């Protein structure tokens, strides 16, 4: 059959994926045409295509978009009905994460999560060890600022990183994800959230991170583009495990970036890891030949031809078959970071954490908090109200 597959990505992913679809296409006698672009505009294009029912047969979907495209589990083909896919390669958790309303809508390609990266060189220079708990962290921060200078920061948190840090703090305290799957409402009390927000505030007060305003003043430049990061003056961040190289590469003069397990609060009940499928493959419900598409998807994720060609271009694969086959391939630090993510504990993360409106509610409110327009309590209430409103639409 003639199939189309759409994805976003960078250079290496494009090359790998084209190879993979060629190989899998040949294997099953299908021709698969790749439609790919950068991340910018991909959502808009997919949205338009979904509205026009003209999306590709196989679509790479960002996991948080699932509720947008398939609120009731009917946006894409039901993958469980497609024989060709060997679902045994995924854990129940992965399958659950790819389901909407109980219908399997997307197959997790890889699992990703946030980990802490610290610039070991900077810590060494200040003669302090890399912290393991938040308490140590604050102490270390004080030492570094004292020894190396006020313009040294130990951490970085802007935009969604700020949201996820707040989330981390709350989850560690409460052991609950933002959304209660039972009620489909915010699981946290305003007080709990307020405490998380205050934690963020404390990071600023102690000089661990730069204030939101200072970040904005620099034009909200990406961390890896900042000269201060490259020079080690920002010594740590909380990032996706798969992005290790992006942050490690710009570092100058042989500085070393190390992935570190979750820092924990003294009274933490869990690691609070934010772990999720990084992206999923879905099959269009408008596909003329879903069976053929399923064959290709299975080939890409579970069969040697696909696995070999794709390699780690989408992170370390979630499929067991692929994980086994790839073995120790891939950068060791990325593997280490991924291992940390997989090992850490925490509640199941709901895709609503990254729902655009919910994310906007967090970022906007945290910004107001950072600019001193709200106190932590008010901010917490505002976030919870807004989030609940959004969630209500999905009842």
């Amino acid at each position, binding site marked *: 059959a003639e199939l189309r597959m759409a994805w976003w990505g960078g250079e290496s992913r*494009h090359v790998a994926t084209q190879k993979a679809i060629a190989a899998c296409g040949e294997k099953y006698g299908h021709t698969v045409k790749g439609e790919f672009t950068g991340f910018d505009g991909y959502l808009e294009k997919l949205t338009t295509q979904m509205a*026009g029912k003209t999306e590709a047969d196989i679509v790479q979907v960002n996991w948080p978009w699932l509720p947008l495209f398939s609120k009731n589990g009917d946006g894409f083909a039901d993958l469980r009905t497609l024989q060709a896919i060997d679902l045994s390669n995924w854990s129940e958790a992965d399958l659950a994460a790819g389901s909407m309303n109980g219908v399997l809508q997307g197959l997790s390609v890889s699992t990703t999560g946030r980990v802490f990266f610290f610039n070991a060189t900077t810590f060494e220079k200040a003669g302090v060890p890399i912290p393991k708990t938040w308490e140590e962290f604050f102490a270390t921060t004080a030492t570094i600022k004292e020894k190396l200078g006020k313009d040294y920061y130990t951490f970085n948190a802007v935009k969604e990183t700020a949201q996820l840090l707040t989330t981390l703090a709350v989850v560690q305290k409460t052991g609950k994800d933002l959304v209660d799957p039972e009620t489909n409402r915010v699981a946290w009390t305003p007080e709990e959230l307020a405490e998380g927000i205050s934690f963020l505030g404390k990071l600023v007060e102690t000089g661990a991170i730069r204030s939101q305003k200072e970040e904005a003043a620099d034009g909200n430049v990406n961390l*890896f583009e900042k000269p201060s990061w490259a020079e080690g003056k920002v010594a740590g961040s909380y990032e996706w495990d798969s992005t290790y190289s992006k942050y490690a590469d710009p570092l100058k003069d042989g500085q070393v970036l190390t992935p570190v397990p979750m820092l924990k609060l003294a009274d933490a009940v869990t690691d609070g890891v934010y772990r999720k499928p990084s992206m999923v493959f879905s099959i269009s419900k408008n596909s003329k030949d879903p069976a053929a598409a399923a064959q290709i998807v299975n080939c890409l994720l579970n069969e040697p031809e696909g696995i070999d060609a794709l390699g780690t271009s989408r992170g370390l694969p979630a499929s067991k078959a692929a994980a086994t086959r790839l073995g120790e391939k891939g950068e060791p630090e990325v593997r280490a970071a991924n291992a940390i993510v997989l090992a850490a504990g925490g509640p199941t993360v709901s895709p609503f954490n990254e729902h655009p409106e919910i994310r906007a509610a967090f970022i906007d409110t945290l910004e107001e908090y950072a600019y001193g327009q709200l106190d932590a309590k008010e901010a917490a209430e505002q976030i919870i109200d807004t989030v609940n409103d959004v969630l209500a639409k999905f009842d």
Partner: protein
Amino acid sequence: MTEFQALNDRVAARRARVRLISTAVRYVLLFSVGFVMLYPLIWLVGASFKTNSEIFSGAGFMPANPTADGYVKGWQTSTPYTFGRFFWNSFLIILPKVIGTAISCTMAAYAFARFDFPLKKILFGSVIAILLLPNVVTRIPQYILFRDLGWLDTFLPLWVPSAFAGDAFFVFMLVQFLRSLPADMEEAARVDGANSLQTLVYIVVPMLAPALISVCLFQFMWTMNDFLGPLIYLSSVDKYPVSLALKLSIDTTEAFEWNRILAMSVLTITPALVVFFAAQRYFIEGISSGGVKG
């Protein structure tokens, strides 16, 4: 007499000095504004020869270790095609679009400026209305329209509307320009036996040339830069124009190589700049006279 001469000389000298100062002030101002205007372009070209880490080390434009890496790698692209292919696609989109725009907008402008017909006011009103409407919202209905026409993944949606004088701005501009031209030559042509079409082709179009050139230039540059249109309507990579190809390697969640992007940006704007510099005289004449007659 000599006293005379001396006086004259003194006065002339003072006047020359004042003039010199005033001129100097003007030039300093103009040069500094000009520098600010052009700096981005200079920076862009300079940065495209920098290494990735150097790009972010400051706003200077001189590369410390010049490298053409960005160009070499960028040209290869991550696809089976080189950048040349994408230029060719851009060309395939731009050529019919520019030609279609020029022809259809000229016809529309000719009708509005030189003929009387029923509903003229309303139709001209529609030109203005299109000008005012934010285009974000018509995108989805338009997409569905083209889907129903079966034009997705072809170049048609990109240039057919333009070929039907869909770019209200150009129609408006040409109408303004044409209104400022006397109709005598056209009457002379009619007396010479030319019908209205011949008059349009042989007389009006040549006189409209400056405005038409700027229309073509604008259309050229806008189309070259247009990203959303091709993104939405084209799915096959082998049909991508350069604007889209430029974004191929930009995945904001993964690392990306800036110098390659900047290098390709330079290549992307080069045609527009070349065309602009080549035709700037007509271009400026065109837009200015199109605008003067409010």
